[in-house]
């Protein structure tokens, strides 16, 4: 049995704000069963439940971290509302249902939060896409330096550069290339938005 060390929603939120892994773990484990129940009862399987649940946790996590989460409702209700909306959207995509689901609890309108989340996701995907297009060894160098915060010295050794200066030179070229790819794809998506509206 997992010991619940955070007894209220506000304590959980404070824990997450302090980067406590335990708080996040407890939050994750606490609410998964109700979402699994919701998805299983609405034409989904365990993997679907995992996907939308994790997305909802990310929405909540980002919202807490951004400091814009106000505890007007229970965390449970917020998570359920996000999952419900995400699941409806997915059902619509798969056209498995005419847009109605069996509900297990009350829910809130969370359109704005999801919009913000989708915007952020799009940006992240753009960067992920640019990184994957970058090719080796640039991708690893950039990830090691900027994402994993490794020192130039370690990177130089890992890639067999004679000194850190050479590695810096290489990293600079890689960064320029990444920027180019990123801003190109960024302007492309913006064009698409303009054309659509």
């Amino acid at each position, binding site marked *: 049995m997992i010991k619940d060390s955070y007894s209220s929603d506000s304590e959980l939120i404070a824990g997450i704000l302090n980067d406590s892994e335990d708080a*996040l773990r407890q939050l*994750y484990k606490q609410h998964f069963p109700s979402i699994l129940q919701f998805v299983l009862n609405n034409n989904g399987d365990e993997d679907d439940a995992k996907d939308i649940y994790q997305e909802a946790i990310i929405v909540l996590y980002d919202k807490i971290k951004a400091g814009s989460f106000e505890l007007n409702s229970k965390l449970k209700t917020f998570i359920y509302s996000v999952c419900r909306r995400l699941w409806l959207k997915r059902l619509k995509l798969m056209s498995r249902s005419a847009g109605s689901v069996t509900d297990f609890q009350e829910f809130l309108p969370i359109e704005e939060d999801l919009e913000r989340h989708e915007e952020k996701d799009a*940006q992240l995907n753009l960067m992920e896409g640019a990184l994957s297009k970058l090719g080796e060894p640039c991708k690893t160098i950039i990830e090691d330096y*900027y*994402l994993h915060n490794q020192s130039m010295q370690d990177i130089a050794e890992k890639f067999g550069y004679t000194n850190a200066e050479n590695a810096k030179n290489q990293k600079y070229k890689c960064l320029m290339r990444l*920027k180019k790819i*990123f801003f190109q794809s960024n302007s492309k998506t913006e064009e698409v938005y303009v054309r659509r509206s």
Partner: protein
Amino acid sequence: MYGDLNLSNEIERYLKGEMTEAERKHFDSLREADADLDHKVVEQEQFMGKLRAVANRRTLKAQLNEFHAELNIEQISSEVKPKEAKVIQLFRKYTSNIAVAASVAILTIFGTLFVTNPGKQNSTYSALRRDMESIKRSQNALIRNINSTKSHSKMPSAPGTFGGTSFVLSSDGFLITNYHVINGADSIYIQNEKGDAFKVKTVYSDPVFDLAVLKIDDPTFKSFGSLPYTFKKSKSDLGEEVFTLGFPRDEMVYGKGYLSSATGFGGDTIAYQVSIPANPGNSGGPVVDSKGNVVGVISGKQTLTEGATFAVRSQSILKFINSIPQDSLKDKITVNKKNTLSGLPRTQQIKKLQDYVFMVKVYN
């Protein structure tokens, strides 16, 4: 001052806080003096922020997956599995009992029916949608093959499986018909007396009102122009003279009658009873009063009772249009408010009206 590479390195050191106090002060003053440099710093800062966001998201996802792996999914899902499982278990257990009970029930029903065999049959409601299949077969020999002589490229070659009537709601391409006409449709086409044919799609339908809104989905369609009729907002009186146009056959048919009761089948307050000849295919046709106001939509009739046709009231139509959720519609349906039919003789009214009444062909 710096080369590109060095500049970039310096900016990074500055942003990462790796500079000494003195270097930092120097760099700040450079930044203030050089707008171009300042711009580069801001850009680099934002870009690094984006990279950091990717890193954070990756860490978070890995963490969540780790938590997920710690869960005992099987146990949880067995606890929350849909309740149907239980029903099936119960069903299996009691199959034999159910079978005995069911056969007794069936025997009782048929026994009772046989003993008390009613001399008269109960009249029921029948929706007036036309089943094209039966007509097609009976008239097979008489059908002109329109497709070989004229090129109707827009329409599928086979005749529709069901037919009904529909009329224009607003000039920008919205039409109204009965829910039961388009229910279960794969594709829907409409055609009027002039031969204008369009593909349409269902925008919204409601089985309670038995109404559906169609929208023309055809690039060649522009506008219907201004409509000659309006929708009556108030209740109509008994004895009010009304007429309808519809497509019980492939030609438009005019029917005349009067409002005979204020409620529909079984006291249904959504509808009127109209004494008007109506046949399968009339469903969805407008019921128009002598002044040119639409007072209802033909929806069905009572079998075995002569002249009892039912029409959904115009107030119900307006209520139905207002109940359409905003997200089903791109733009609001605005119902016409100017009537140009009033005072005209009937033949002129029909002439003006007939371009706005369409035959609905439903394919499924």
